[in-house]
């Protein structure tokens, strides 16, 4: 967790890929960090893929890389991404890496660097999204686009206003639903943005015990709930995500109490839907993550391997499904619950 003395603050250095600076988004970001050292690089991979980087140390002083994304701009759904039953599901990665540091996250082992890469050529992404809407397989359903997949986009909205731009884009389109999944309490950054039916804000909620143990550098539960309430008041579509449900000692008791308190604290009838998942991670990412941060107990549990993805045993997975379904059914109709 962030407590290291003598480390530079985040974004003390901004690396700028050749050609990135001309984009309005890059100009806007650079303006927000007048004191940052600007270092020009031929390609973002020169710095992002350097050998010999220490992910854990970089997390204590993250830097920003501004780059220009080359195609593809959209990706098909993966085995570890929830599509909530939508058929035309794609995701995009305007930002690589995350301000937060959840120990169960695949980002712990995915990239060689902890620095953030922001792709400045937003219009290319929007164009790709427009094309994907036209070419979607099932024309009876919208294109569902997850824009906060390799990151928590709302958490960095203060420095990189991606969410605002994507919401503005989605508001002008038809047949698209963008999902912005977050743990952020920074709802205020969207206070002047008009809610739109094409945008779904998904808050990942966990018991405070789990937040403290695994969701490093994220806002506490009460602040996330505040954000959820504000979003509902403003009229946003809000999804609740219980993903991953972590198998900690007495997890049923901990999650039971957490859900009871949660449904007291928010107007649950206004929630759009709920998704539930369990810990899962690509085997190679898991091994790399364990090597990087070997002091986290997640990396010493017994998991089952299925199609290169490690996850809890089928038996415990079933227990989680049964338990969560029983709890959620008290508040949601079955078609609004997606359990993974």
């Amino acid at each position, binding site marked *: 967790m962030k407590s*290291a*003395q*003598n*480390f*530079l603050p985040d974004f*003390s*250095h901004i*690396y700028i890929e050749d050609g990135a600076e001309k984009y309005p988004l890059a100009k806007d970001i650079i303006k927000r960090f007048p004191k940052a*050292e600007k*270092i020009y*690089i*031929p390609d973002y991979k*020169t*710095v992002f893929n*350097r*050998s*010999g*980087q*220490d992910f*854990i*140390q*970089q997390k*204590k*002083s993250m830097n920003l890389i501004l780059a220009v994304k080359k195609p593809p701009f959209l990706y098909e759904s993966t085995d570890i991404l929830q599509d909530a039953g939508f058929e035309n599901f794609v995701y995009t990665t305007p930002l690589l890496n995350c301000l937060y540091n959840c120990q169960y996250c695949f980002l712990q082992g995915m990239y060689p660097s902890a620095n953030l890469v922001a792709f400045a050529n937003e219009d290319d992404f929007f164009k790709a999204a427009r094309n994907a809407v036209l070419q979607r397989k099932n024309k009876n359903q919208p294109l569902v686009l997850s824009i906060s997949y390799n990151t928590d986009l709302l958490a960095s909205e203060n420095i990189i206003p991606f969410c605002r731009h994507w919401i503005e884009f989605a508001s002008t389109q038809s047949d698209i639903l963008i999902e912005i999944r977050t743990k952020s309490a920074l709802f205020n950054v969207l206070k002047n943005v008009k809610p739109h039916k094409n945008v779904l804000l998904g808050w990942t909620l966990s018991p405070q015990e789990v937040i403290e143990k695994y969701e490093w550098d994220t806002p506490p539960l009460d602040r996330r709930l505040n954000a959820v309430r504000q979003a509902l008041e403003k009229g946003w579509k809000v999804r609740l995500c219980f993903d991953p449900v972590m198998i900690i000692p007495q997890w049923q008791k901990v999650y039971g109490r957490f859900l009871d308190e949660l449904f007291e604290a928010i107007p649950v009838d206004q929630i759009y839907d709920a998704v539930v998942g369990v810990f899962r991670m690509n085997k190679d990412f898991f091994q790399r993550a364990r090597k990087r941060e*070997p*002091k*986290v*107990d997640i*990396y*010493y549990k017994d998991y089952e391997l299925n199609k290169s993805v490690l996850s809890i045993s089928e038996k415990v997975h079933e227990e989680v499904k049964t338990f969560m379904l029983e709890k959620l059914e008290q508040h949601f109709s079955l078609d609004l619950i997606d359990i993974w």
Partner: protein
Amino acid sequence: MNHLLIITALQSEAEPIIKQYQLEKKHHSEKLFYFQRERITCLTTGVGEKNVRKRLGAFLQELACSNTILINIGIAGGKKDSSKIGTMYLINKITSDKSGKAWLPDILLKTGIPEVQLTTVSKGVTDGGEKYKGLVDMEAAVIFETAVEFFPVHCLVFLKIVSDYMDEVLDSPEQVLPIMSNNLSKLDSIITLMQNSEIVRAPLLNEQHERLLTDLNNTLKLTETQTHQLKNKIEGYIAIKDDDFSFLSNYLHIEINSKQERSKIFYEICTKLSS
């Protein structure tokens, strides 16, 4: 406390440092010597690419690099309009003039030293260096290229003191010594920062743990898979309980006479470590 390996090109760049920290001369080989006291080591490579490759490469081959931070310090040419003679700079990008390749140190700690980029050239620059951005020197790129095989990038620190405005080659001891000496207090604060920072992470298993693991493998005649599983269990035990597992030394006195015995003991150890 972290170990610091200070690399200079010229002996006159190293002299004030050797004196300040009372480093003693030691021999790496007949032709290669260095200076050391406690947690500071100083090696002079000689000027230019060839010397660095030969001497630094040979030296690092035999140095236990964990817990070490490498600092390259030396004089460099600067631009009149953007640098000041006698000032120390921290280098944030190194470009090799020869290959065009860029090297990027990972600057994570607050040093308070102004930052600038640098180009490593093969010949001294005396024409004002119009075409170069930032400073020029003759070794940094090859030091980085050689050292990155041994160190993580955030443990490579490049400090350059501007000695001229790329209008003369300045390398006599009479010229270099005062420039270095005037910056010793700044260097000292960086050395203190680097030595005491948490920038170098201790591995989960220390030397004692590793030794015990090796001894157990030998005594119990474990298979490769069992060795791997045991290491995994021990790491988990330390990670979760942050505890001492010296109880395992009891197994060092056991004699294993069959595969069955080995499996039984192995299972027993794993159960204890998982409990």
